[in-house]
């Protein structure tokens, strides 16, 4: 079974600075999908960024980018120019590459605080 590990329960960053959240995973599959979700106090999970394992290029969405290291099974999220609205719980998630796969496996989360 696949597992996802986030080793940083809490992180903090100064507004306008850059922060990196770590995620590692364990799988025997060669094709899969990785996601970062953000959960503000409203509880709604919001998709931040998605990476397909067969693509070597790191995904980027505006101020959010990932560092995907397939051999090391690492998938970190970099937030540049941090804003107060970025404060939330961030979850890393895995989904199998099988066409029938649909369940997301989540890490334990990292609580990000942004200081003004």
């Amino acid at each position: 079974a696949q597992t996802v590990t986030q080793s940083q329960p809490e992180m903090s960053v100064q507004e306008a600075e850059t922060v990196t959240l770590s995620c590692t995973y364990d799988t025997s599959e060669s094709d899969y999908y990785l996601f970062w979700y953000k959960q503000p106090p409203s509880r709604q999970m919001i998709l931040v960024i998605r990476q397909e394992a067969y693509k070597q290029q790191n995904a980027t969405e505006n101020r959010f980018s990932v560092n995907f290291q397939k051999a090391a099974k690492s998938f970190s999220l970099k937030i540049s120019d941090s804003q107060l609205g970025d404060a939330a719980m961030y979850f890393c998630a895995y989904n199998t590459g099988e066409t029938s796969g649909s369940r997301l496996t989540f890490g334990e989360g990292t609580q990000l605080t942004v200081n003004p």
Partner: protein
Amino acid sequence: GAGVSQSPSNKVTEKGKDVELRCDPISGHTALYWYRQSLGQGLEFLIYFQGNSAPDKSGLPSDRFSAERTGGSVSTLTIQRTQQEDSAVYLCASSLVAGSNQPQHFGDGTRLSIL
């Protein structure tokens, strides 16, 4: 509606009672998922539907948990004879179709508290 809608937003009930949680997916989304988030934890998969059928219900923790979906739209998660360990936030998500590359869109969840 524009997003995934869940009701009620909060539910407090006594141990031993049955509860029903409702999820209304994004219009046109054929796949629907249920997850559970215990306090301070990540999300745990429960079950997903493609249309009205549930290809994967392996995450349901016990036979007290069941879910159904009718008309390919609204889904209900039922917990019978609730226990204190059932206290959690229950999140529903939907996607256009079931598939690992499909982004799942989440609702705000139902916070269930068992006294």
